């Protein structure tokens, strides 16, 4: 208080004037910033969607390069092999389960294609077997997918499992995917399971 009283009246008036001018300028700039912000959000709002995005693999574009196992920010990867049972032939000699060059058709570990033995084989009836993926063991390396796609029906394929996936703003696997098979999809249609989902015809 004491400082202002010491100042001559004329100075105070001058101060007030410059203060008013500054306040006027400030509110002008504030208004234009608000308008700019409104413009940007309005423009993107005109395109915005209510649904959220998640990342998913197009199994028909996937080339089974193996990067899903190594590029995910999670270890083990959120990408797992899923089994579209509708397409499975239930073969005894399974291209996804057994190595193509295995000497004998036994289910010994050295004959299995999966490096973590995540594929569980169950006898159903002669000569059919069911193949089930143990998700806890699967690392998403796509070795079985390659085998199944090359020698079988292609019922084994990779998908991003959404209760594991962190849904990064940009998927670090998508960046490295050589065939651009990982894309944003709407969260309401979060999976591309072969059989229910067919190759989009463009």
């Amino acid at each position, binding site marked *: 208080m004491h400082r202002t009283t010491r100042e001559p009246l004329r100075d105070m008036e001058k101060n007030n004037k410059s203060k008013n001018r500054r306040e006027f300028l400030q509110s002008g700039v504030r208004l234009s910033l608000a308008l700019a912000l409104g413009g940007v959000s309005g423009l993107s709002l005109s395109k915005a969607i209510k649904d959220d995005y998640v990342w998913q693999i197009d199994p028909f574009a996937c080339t089974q390069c193996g990067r899903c196992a190594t590029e995910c920010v999670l270890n083990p990867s959120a990408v797992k092999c899923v089994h579209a049972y509708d397409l499975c032939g239930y073969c005894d000699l399974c291209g996804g389960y057994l190595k193509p060059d295995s000497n004998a058709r036994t289910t010994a570990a050295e004959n299995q294609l999966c490096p973590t033995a995540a594929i569980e084989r169950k006898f159903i009836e002669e000569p059919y077997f069911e193949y089930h993926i143990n998700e806890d063991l699967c690392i998403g390396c796509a070795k079985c997918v390659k085998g199944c796609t090359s020698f079988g029906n292609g019922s084994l394929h990779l998908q991003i499992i959404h209760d594991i996936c962190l849904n990064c703003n940009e998927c670090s696997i998508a960046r490295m995917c*050589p065939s651009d098979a990982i894309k944003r999809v709407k969260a309401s249609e979060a999976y591309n399971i072969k059989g229910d989902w067919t190759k989009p015809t463009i």
Partner: protein
Amino acid sequence: MKKLKYILYTFAFLLLTVSVYAQQQRFPKPEFDSGYTQPSTITPEPRALQLEYFDVLILAIFLAVASYLIIKKRSRRGILWLSVLALLYFGFYRNGCICSIGAIQNVTLSFFDATYAVSITALLFFVLPLIVTLFYGRTFCAGVCPLGAIQDLVIIKPLSLPKWLNKTLGLIPYVYLSLAVLFAATGTDFIICRYDPFIGIFRMDAKALMIILGVAMLLMGMFIGRPYCRFLCPYGVLLSWMSRFSKRHLTITPSECIQCKLCSKSCPFDAIDYPTNEKEVVKSGLGPKRFITYALIIPLWIAAGVFVGVKSHTFLSKANPDVYLAELLISQPEVKNDPDNIDVQTFLASGKSMETLVEEAEVIQDKFYTGSMIAGGFLGLVIGMTLLNTVVFRKRQDYEPHKGNCYSCGRCMDYCPVEK
């Protein structure tokens, strides 16, 4: 008769193979006699949309509470606890994703990619803190941002940096912002997310390099307050623009400043401006002459920025995988024989012609040309304006927070001995 049977069999076989082919199934699904029921493929649902909206609600509540605590309640303790809550929720529970800083890229991409539409949650995360900052200053930085919170909590003995260093390092966020927008607009990369130093700590799991970067940033943060916020954060650039012209802002004293200087020692971010000493200003020769010179060379700075941008666009465009692949195939055609190069092998197997690839790469490179030109010009303007600001003389009688740089953390309020 036998022959007819044989022909019929062959015919049936052919028919069967055709139908199998139509189903794209080499081995038809068997019909089971044992009453086997086929299990269904398990597809766990992604995080519910309601929960995403809940995040936005939490953000809005936190912003409101932070502004209330700073402007009305003037409580440092309150804002500290709020920032701890924000760190727990947005940091450790939500793993640092979704965040307002990264949302810059989503909004940018929605402008430049016709096939991409930003989700409302991401848009709100981008816009809400900016609006609140326009009214109450950077209360978002103080109590809501998990990246700010984790750095604020580790400050032990903050050193005061010289003014020139603060100003120079303060230009880095502008570079970071320009690059982030450029890379997002060209659909190349989301660099803000990829090089987020604290996300590894939030997730407690990341590549070694990211962990080292995060820990190094925190160690540095013990002595230099909030290094990421001050010298890297691209969202901070936008927030500081808003905050400079905010309607209200944190004030150090509740009533009249008694010039005790206690607050100036309390700020770890060198964000408090001292009262001006007019005699010193006159002596140092800062005046209208210098102001005019600096203002006149701004176009030169812009021109220099545009020049640098144009010169660096080919280098920058190599970050785009398509451009990189095209350049690799042109400069080193022998990589086609390298079976270990997955990108090249996938391209060759895809049946896409070299011409299409080069054409696509050229389109992206053109985008980079325009983009880096604009980014360079913008950076030139920023450098020019920063220099101009150093010679602008503003009268100040009291110790005041620098509205652009102040994070509204409230330490100065806490130190101020003046009672209401």
